[in-house]
């Protein structure tokens, strides 16, 4: 009885811990987005004030013949625009001349067109002068007038500058203040949550029963014990046991039909194992039996898988596909979604930022808004990989990640798998036919044939193993 109450309490504490962690990670992820939004606003407003100051000075600058660099550039641009316009007009003239000559070889045509070209030339010159005049001092102004205008312009420009500067410092101060306030409040909240998390964790660890450790050593993440899977008369997996340790890359190899994908499907609960159990260390205090969980709850335990044949949502963009994979991370309920509450919007922003960072890691950024239809197979495989990273994975199960990839892509994949293991602190469990890839990336390999274990060890040991060689090459030993 007391034990039951204890385990119940532990369950509550775990739930609380998870909630607190969720809240903390949300705050941590949302803070940079918020700061960026404040800074963007500041930049927008700064640009606006600058624009206004410039606009206020433009009129007097023309009047006072003070050639500011901005004004000079503007004049150049205006003249170039006129030049361009006349270039097209000349082209049009040449074209109509060509057509007229095609119609009749009359010498009068030549003279008419020469006349028209001259006219156009003179009009162009006129326009250019007029335009240049707009930027220059009217000539009839007397020297004293000019001096007065210059003085007035100087005063006005100083005033405008001072005003703009004041505005800008105000804006900056406002943004800084806002950023500081937000950061402080978020950080204090995060710290508070951190304290709470530590407290709950402390209690959890202190009250931890010895059961978990007795079931499974501390450094093992997944332990498959005496797993059997029978389809009618076919024994696809036969009394198989192996352990996947935390932080390693574990490879499962075997000839076609050896039952590798069946094992994956048993672990992710797509199949109900006929016998045996799968233990999984969910966290420091909890070891769970995966046999007790329905298939859609597996991801909530931190186990994410990919599929042998690419299974994406074909109607959604790559970014949205990644957001689908983050489905379990959302905390907004149905009514929050129906009314698109600010909470949902903030969550979406955090998720999008995360999705972009994942896409960046995998080099998929150019495809973020593309629809998966018609993308190359290597990219689709990478998207599947990207999807696994969205929901805080602890164990990533890859079903033939290199199938259908060329040699170069496979090499990239090997680098990527190691990078994912290191960056996301995840354990990787993969099935693969490409021996080069397996031997390159895996720390431990388990070789199976017809559902039975042949050997388990480091790549070198597996390569030297006689049973494995005979299963693959049919060698008689």
């Amino acid at each position: 009885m007391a034990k039951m109450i204890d385990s119940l309490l532990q369950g509550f504490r775990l739930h609380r811990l998870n909630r607190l962690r969720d809240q903390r990670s949300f705050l941590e992820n949302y803070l940079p987005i918020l700061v960026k939004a404040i800074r963007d606003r500041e930049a927008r407003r700064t640009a606006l004030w600058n624009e206004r100051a410039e606009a206020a000075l433009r009129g007097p600058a023309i009047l006072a013949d003070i050639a500011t660099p901005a004004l000079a550039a503007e004049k150049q641009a205006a003249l170039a625009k006129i030049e361009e316009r006349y270039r097209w007009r000349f082209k049009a003239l040449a074209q109509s001349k060509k057509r007229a000559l095609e119609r009749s070889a009359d010498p009068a045509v030549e003279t008419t067109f020469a006349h028209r070209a001259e006219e156009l030339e003179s009009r162009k010159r006129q326009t250019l002068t007029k335009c240049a005049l707009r930027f220059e001092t009217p000539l009839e102004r007397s020297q004293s007038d000019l001096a007065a205008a210059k003085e007035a312009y100087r005063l006005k420009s100083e005033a405008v500058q001072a005003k703009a500067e004041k505005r800008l410092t105000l804006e900056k101060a406002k943004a800084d203040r806002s950023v500081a306030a937000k950061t402080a409040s978020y950080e204090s909240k995060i710290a508070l949550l951190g304290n709470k998390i530590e407290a709950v964790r402390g209690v959890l660890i202190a009250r931890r029963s010895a059961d978990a450790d007795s079931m499974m050593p501390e450094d093992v993440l997944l332990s498959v014990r005496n797993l059997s899977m029978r389809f009618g008369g076919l024994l696809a997996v036969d009394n198989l046991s192996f352990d996947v340790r935390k932080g390693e890359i574990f490879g499962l190899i075997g000839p076609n039909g050896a039952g590798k994908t069946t094992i994956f499907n048993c672990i992710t609960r797509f199949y109900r194992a006929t016998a045996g159990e799968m233990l999984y260390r969910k966290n420091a205090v909890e070891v769970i039996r995966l046999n007790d969980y329905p298939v859609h709850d597996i991801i909530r335990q931190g186990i994410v898988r990919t599929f042998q044949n690419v299974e994406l949502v074909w109607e959604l963009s790559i970014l949205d596909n990644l957001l689908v994979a983050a489905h379990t991370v959302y905390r907004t309920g149905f009514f929050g979604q129906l009314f698109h509450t600010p909470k949902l919007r903030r969550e979406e922003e955090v998720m999008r930022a995360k999705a972009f960072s994942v896409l960046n890691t995998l080099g998929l950024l150019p495809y973020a808004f593309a629809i998966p239809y018609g993308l190359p197979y290597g990219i689709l495989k990478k998207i599947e990989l990207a999807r696994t990273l969205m929901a805080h994975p602890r164990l990533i199960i890859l079903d033939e990640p290199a199938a259908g990839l060329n040699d170069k892509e496979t090499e990239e994949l090997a680098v990527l798998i190691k990078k994912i293991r290191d960056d996301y602190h995840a354990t990787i469990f993969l099935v693969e036919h490409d021996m080069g890839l397996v031997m390159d990336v895996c720390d431990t390999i388990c070789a199976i044939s017809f559902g039975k274990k042949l050997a388990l060890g480091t790549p070198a040991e597996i390569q030297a193993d006689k049973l494995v060689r005979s299963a693959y090459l049919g060698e008689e030993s």
Partner: protein
Amino acid sequence: MTTLRLSFDRIRKQLASIARHPYFGFLAFGSILVVLRLLAIGGVIPNSLMKSLVITMIYAIIALGFSLLLGYGGLASLGTAGFVGLGTYFIGHFSGTLGYPFAATLLISLLGAIVLGAIVGFISLRIEGMYLAIITLGLSEILREVFKSFTAFTNGVNGLGFRDFALFGLPVSDTAVDFIVIFVFILIILGTLNIIKSPTGRALLAMKNSDSAAQSMGIGLMKYRLLAFILATIYAVIGGLLYMMDQQFSIPTTWSLDFSLNILAAVVVGGAQSITGIILGTFMIFGLNMTVLKEIAFFREYPDATWIVSGLLIILITMFYPGGLIRLIQAIRFWLVKTGKKLKRKWRIHRYGEDD
């Protein structure tokens, strides 16, 4: 002068950002409908046209619910008619015969919709595809028989009338009902938009694409299938309530397979995933003969010939634009842009010569 131009630029930018908001188009559409209704009061456009637009809107609400089911959830159902009929009888019986206040009727209807949707949703966990369609068809026929024989509730084959509708103690005129329909229509559109742009909409799409991938990403089939059916049923029942307010009469023969098939056709013809497409599709199936074709002398003489036109349009659109009317519109827009560019290029060559 320049300052003025700057502020104009800013206002234009802000207006553009408002216009880009996903709600904007639909809110503008709603305002146009309100203006049309006001014009009908003023006698500028005929009242009968407005009546057919209002009934089309009611059908569009039902079609939107169905699109969540078919276009997003990938679940086929032929039971729409039964659910809509149930909605009409809910309001006809509780608000009409028994005189309950409207809020109570609404609550009863929503609860009824949720229960019924959940039942069908549970069935859909076991049975999929065509078989699910047949089962829902059976359910709809059962409901129709219930409408026929359960006379205390539905007044049987004679049909149930519904008059003197009052909302919060105030009598509601026909004109007011039209405004209510427009308001609810726009609300439903915005709600649907929110749902399909949120994790729920994406989860439904994921489920439609691949059950196993959806499950491996933590999308429980039970939850989302039930949700899809409950939503579709709620939309259908709300459509039924509005139908009864607008038509003031409901008879079991209306709620037959024809009705469900028409809704299905509207969704498929319109483009199962686009709200605009579904509104267009509903207009094509239901509204076209009531508004446009009726004005042509030939169809006034042979009213049944309008169905031939609808049928032909369905065949043509599904043949050439399997993605629905929305694809046709996209194609037209694309063609216009392309032709515009081509014409411009031609003109340039004519005016300025080949090179450059």
